[in-house]
């Protein structure tokens, strides 16, 4: 389903948001220092919605960095008590298409199997996503190369766009419809301005072509300057690897999941001490192939949403699209040399 567009006048924004908080926790973008991130809405504190990329992805709202999954204590003979699942209704407003695409991918990772992640499921079920159309693309944005666009609405419950006079809202699901009943929203003939976005480029070789490059020297060369910090993985809306640890404080303890990163040396260290990904090159290859090949094979969609957060966060401004382009050249060369041989 999708409803018709409704107009919220600019001056009514604060009142509308206040109304929303009556029935749910409301999360909106907030500028902290030089970056935008999601924060709890405080009534009376004006909200603003950036035209493009919110630097800190909404990933942590669904899959927190540190997530207690069970508690233990000696009194209960150290037995594990699962934590209570969060159920309070929540609205996340202003997520852009690349961030929502991240949630769609996480749905496949955490829910698309026989052992769904109950905590993630609870976070998803309690959340209504009010997405926002981007009105511009930053130089690091490349969602159009990743089969998305700044107008994409998949995965959102409702969508809005900012216009000169205010905000145009449209419900996309029943959950979304329920939020848009306010009399502050008026029927309108207006539609968000249709913009021309750059045509998608096929920057990265197809998954199977990429796998052909598994043993290529490329990885060694490309990893020369990679620091193998976990910056890109933590900023990425689809990087979902985590570790599990038991943490004890005095007489109480928690079993937690915490974000882990394939860029860390310790990530792939096995119990025996062997580590199949000792080199920077092996770790860079793992992340690149995971984004562009393994994700296809495992979950049927690429896990790169083209948001460019990895580029923004990288201490050496490494550009993954550029890595993709170089891989493309390498794949073409390989094809040519194969053709010559056969």
């Amino acid at each position, binding site marked *: 389903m999708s409803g018709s567009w409704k107009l919220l006048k600019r001056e009514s924004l604060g009142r509308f948001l206040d109304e929303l908080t009556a029935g749910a926790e409301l999360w909106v973008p907030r500028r902290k220092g030089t970056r935008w991130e999601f924060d709890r809405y405080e009534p009376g504190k004006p909200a603003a919605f950036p035209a493009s990329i919110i630097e800190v992805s909404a990933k942590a709202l669904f899959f927190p960095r540190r997530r207690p999954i069970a508690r233990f204590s000696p009194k209960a003979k150290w037995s594990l008590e699962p934590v209570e699942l969060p159920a309070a209704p929540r609205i996340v407003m202003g997520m852009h298409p690349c961030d929502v695409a991240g949630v769609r991918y996480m749905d496949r990772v955490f829910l698309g199997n026989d052992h769904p992640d109950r905590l993630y499921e609870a976070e998803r079920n309690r959340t209504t996503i009010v997405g926002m159309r981007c009105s511009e693309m930053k*130089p690091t944005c490349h969602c159009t190369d990743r089969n998305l666009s700044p107008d994409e609405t998949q995965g959102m419950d409702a969508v809005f766009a900012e216009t000169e006079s205010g905000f145009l809202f449209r419900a996309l699901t029943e959950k979304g419809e329920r939020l848009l009943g306010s009399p502050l929203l008026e029927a309108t003939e207006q539609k968000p301005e249709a913009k021309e976005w750059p045509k998608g480029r096929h920057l990265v070789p197809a998954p199977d072509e990429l796998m052909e490059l598994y043993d290529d020297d490329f990885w060694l060369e490309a990893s020369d300057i990679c620091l193998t910090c976990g910056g890109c993985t933590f*900023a990425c809306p689809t990087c979902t690897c985590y570790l599990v640890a038991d943490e004890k404080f005095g007489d109480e303890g928690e079993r937690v999941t915490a974000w882990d*990163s394939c860029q860390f040396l310790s990530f792939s260290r096995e119990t025996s001490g062997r580590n199949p990904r000792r080199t920077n090159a092996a770790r860079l290859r793992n992340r690149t192939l995971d984004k562009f090949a393994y994700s296809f094979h495992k979950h049927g969609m690429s896990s790169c949403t083209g948001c460019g957060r990895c580029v923004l966060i990288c201490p050496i401004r490494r550009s993954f699209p550029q890595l993709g382009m170089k891989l493309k050249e390498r794949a073409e060369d390989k094809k040519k040399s194969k053709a010559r041989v056969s």
Partner: protein
Amino acid sequence: MTELQQKAHELLDKGGIDALLAWKLDPAIGDVRPTLFKKGDDTGEIVFDERCVHNLANYLPTLVARYNRVGVVLKGCDGRSLTTLLIEHRIGKNSIVALAPACEGVKVNGARAQKCDDCPTTTSPVADYEFGARRLKDDAEFKQLERIEKMSPDERWQFFAEQFEKCQRCYACRQVCPLCYCELCIADQQEPKWIEPSRKLSANAMWHLVRAYHLAGRCSDCGECSRACPEGIPIRLLNIAVEKLVREQFGVRPGTKPDELPPLVTLAKDDPDEVMEEHL
């Protein structure tokens, strides 16, 4: 071509070195990035200006393992890191050719980097080829510390707790640091698990304080930890607080002299500390 670009070309072309690490502009992002030049590459693309923030000494141990001899362009701070890497036998001088242009300071987020005001050597102390005049300055004021020093212990804890709270434990500070080179970092150690891996204040604080202690008397103040931190934690403040103490106690600015051992890993018979007298 500048003298630096010319020399880089000559070294690569005539076979003095197998690869050269410098900065190159990437027009797609409008910024410079560390780049490895090989024979035949256009060294006219080498950039050396206020955008060259990255500490290239950090890459040298990995690169010398792959290439026989590596050329590297170093700012003053990068050169101090290299000095300490040489002193600690992390690499041998024979595998490095150091190109040392005089640095006018770098910019981070559009403003002059704070570390540049405290820089004791604007040209790398290790230099095979120098470009521009060498200037020395030995009286760092560490002005950024004043605000912290005025705080009471409680206020200080408050300040740093707020900062550590933000840490994601991505370890960019460790990876970007040329002197954080342990084969197995204490943060990655499983048994005993010194530092819990999840993101919470106690573990985060532990991580940052341990790192500051491990760098005591060694930190060359390249400021890369602060720059690389995605959360904007002013990690450098911890390091310069320690460096200020080291300078007061031992009169040492790490990395400025090629024959000066880091004071906290040195056993000196004339150490003024009474504890030492008992043991010698």
